[in-house]
């Protein structure tokens, strides 16, 4: 399944054929994020066979991969050189491709400290709605030639075209990682969270749930030990908790109710009850909750609060430009045409 294979010609032919026959396409990788955003209009265009690491240069901190490459394969490849994809995109159901990760733009619990996938993208190769194979960006860290189309692809849900390959910046893994848990009420936890943004600390992920604050501390041994000792009465727990949170396998996420995601501005304390109904990540900037717990306005001043399901998202305020932008890439509305922006 993970043998490198260049399926780009078939993908290109399929798009050209769709243009000629005026048919629509829904782009599909592993399909692990169907609950988040899944197009059902048109013929399925499978990118999962377009697989493989095209080039990996550990000492340049760059990797170039085909869109169908599983996230697990990328992680294993990077691990051989003690490197990682810092933004740590979710692997729901243990799967997912890099193309799907780029299209959905989701980030793991380390987002405020390690950046998101957009920050890591250096270049893309894509097929637009005219059936043209285009390359934007490159494989170098700094590149300001032309508009930054490659980073715009992150989170675009495939509406601009089919991603063929992605060049990414990678990060060295920290020497050690440790996770501690602190029993704190929400106000005290909030003070700790503010410090993780305003002060140089070893913290690289946070989560507050059910009266406990989890902190991931990373760096060299001396600085992580120093950081651990600065939190009195902490309990060390397994690092796995971050994988469970990232992939929504943590017990909090086990509910049949509708999952909501709320984003807040940095430094704004979410107003929550001290109960199990909210799980707070990203130093307070991302709050998960279930519809059953009612009015999310209680969360305070927020950027957005919506179901974790982009398929039904309302058009954004910049929708006039969004429609034009979509037409600029996909004049025949070929790709994922039922997904709104």
């Amino acid at each position, binding site marked *: 399944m993970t043998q490198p294979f260049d399926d780009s010609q078939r993908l290109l032919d399929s798009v050209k054929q769709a243009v000629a026959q005026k048919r629509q396409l829904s782009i599909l990788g592993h399909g692990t994020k169907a609950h988040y955003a899944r197009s059902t209009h048109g013929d399925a265009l499978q990118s999962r066979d377009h697989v493989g690491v095209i080039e990996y240069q550990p000492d*340049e901190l760059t990797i170039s991969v085909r869109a169908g490459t599983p996230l697990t394969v990328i992680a294993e490849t990077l691990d051989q050189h003690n490197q990682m994809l810092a933004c740590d995109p979710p692997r729901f159901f243990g799967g997912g491709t890099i193309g799907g990760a780029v299209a959905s733009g989701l980030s793991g619990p380390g987002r405020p400290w390690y950046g998101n996938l957009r920050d890591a993208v250096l270049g893309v190769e894509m097929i637009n709605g005219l059936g043209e194979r285009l390359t934007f960006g490159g494989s170098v860290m700094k590149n*300001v030639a*032309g*508009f*930054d189309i490659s980073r715009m692809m992150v989170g675009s849900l495939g509406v601009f075209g089919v991603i063929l390959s992605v060049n990414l910046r990678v990060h060295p893994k920290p020497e050690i990682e440790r996770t501690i848990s602190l029993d704190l009420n929400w106000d005290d936890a909030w003070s700790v969270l503010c410090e993780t943004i305003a002060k140089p600390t070893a913290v690289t992920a946070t989560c507050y749930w059910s009266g406990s604050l989890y902190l991931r501390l990373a760096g060299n041994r001396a600085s992580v030990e120093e950081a651990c000792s600065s939190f009195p009465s902490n309990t060390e727990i397994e690092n796995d908790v971050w994988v469970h949170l990232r992939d929504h396998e943590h017990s909090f996420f086990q509910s049949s109710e509708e999952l909501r995601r709320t984003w807040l501005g940095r430094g704004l304390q979410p107003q929550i009850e001290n109960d199990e109904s909210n799980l707070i990540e990203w130093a307070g900037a991302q709050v998960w909750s279930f519809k059953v717990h009612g009015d999310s306005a209680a969360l305070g001043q927020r950027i957005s609060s919506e179901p974790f399901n982009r398929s039904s*998202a309302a058009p954004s305020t910049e929708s006039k430009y969004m429609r034009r932008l979509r037409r600029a890439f996909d004049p025949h509305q070929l790709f994922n045409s039922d997904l709104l922006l």
Partner: protein
Amino acid sequence: MSLEFAIELIKSTLPRDCVLTDATATTPFETDGLTAYRQRPPVVALPRDTNDVRQVLRICHETGVPVVTRGAGTGLSGGALPLENGVLLVLTKMNRILEVDETGCTATVQPGVTNLSISDAVADKGLYYAPDPSSQIACSIGGNVAENAGGVHCLKYGLTLHNVLGLKVQTIEGDELTLGGNGYESSGIELIPLFVGSEGMLGVVTEITVKLLPSPPCKEVLLGAFDDVESAGECVAAIIARGVVPAGLEMMDALAIQAAEDFVHAGYPRDAATILLCEVDGTKEQVRSDVTLIRQLMETNGAVNIRSASEPDERDLLWQGRKAAFPAVGRISPDYYCMDGTIPRRFLGKILSSIALLAAKHELRVANVFHAGDGNLHPLILYDASDDEQLHRAERLGVEILELCVAVGGTVTGEHGVGVEKLDPMCSQFSTPELEQFFRLKEVFDTSGLMNPGKAIPTLAHCSEIKGMHVHGGKLPFPELDRF
């Protein structure tokens, strides 16, 4: 006619001191940091606030007059070069820091605020704004956004793009777009990457929210001198491979070292072929272990001389030589032409030898300054602008250097932008459908093509002219050069 009408309308809308039309007043705006190109603007508008910007854009939209937006004018690619028939919109009066949020570590500023003044304003809170282009004393944050400016600390802290959280943009049609905000993500498609680095081609940025970082408690700079460029290059690769991401990692060649040393007396070894400057920052424990490792790697990769500086004064002195490298080179030549190609770092040795060959062919000297950590090269071509023929040779050499960068998988511009300067090499980096896609994208936000027209993206007609010039009988120029 429409230009004159537009000027009258602007004069009747903005206060008198915000509109310049006299040659004596407008001449200082005829060029930006790329002084080889000059065009006196027929009118300079200096808006006081967002509303003034909207008025000027509305007038340009209604009269069909193009508009070029400019900040402090320190750009190095001619992006703010005025048009003979257009309005120059200069945002330097909009220079207020609107809000600093100490808890969330963000600052919301107007575009005319200088880069360094953001860090100065928040220093007492233990915060700073990370991107630090060499012109940071003078350059404006609006210009940084337009160019996606870098600096010596991008390897660890990213470009302007990575440090901008929100933008307010005015379009020529009269809409205000609010992109991002003060959080990490925002709903819908992220347009911030499109506007950062768009060189004034899509809209006018009137408000910027940036991320502030906590100042690292500990910093140390190491200087390693090497007898040859290759060893220094291998040392850089070794540092990164061992998992250290330095805050800054810079390389200079012999000519640049000598010029900088004669200028600022930083204590650089004048006889070295190359020096590496490496800054690490973080907690005391982290810095201590990184410095030990880097020193070891410098030694094993053949450094002949290693110095370290942990006190602020000593560190600043070492950086001063690097940051003053451009003016230092300016002292040893009447003019210099600064290139900005980026390459995958492993090709450094080959590129530098090729640059030396090309320079010899064109009978020009080149000093090399290099953001070694991220592969961004700044060859400085020394020439005399009073000699037209020399300028022509310098430009030819520049284009050929950039073609080499593209040939090894790099780019024609890492952080200075395309502007008017790199339109030719853009033709070698992008295909016809790619350029057409760029133009379709520009049209989304600028339907009438009035925002900084003629910059950043070459027209297809331009490229076909260029290609005719470069390729004769299907042969690449200078076939004797290795294309790797």
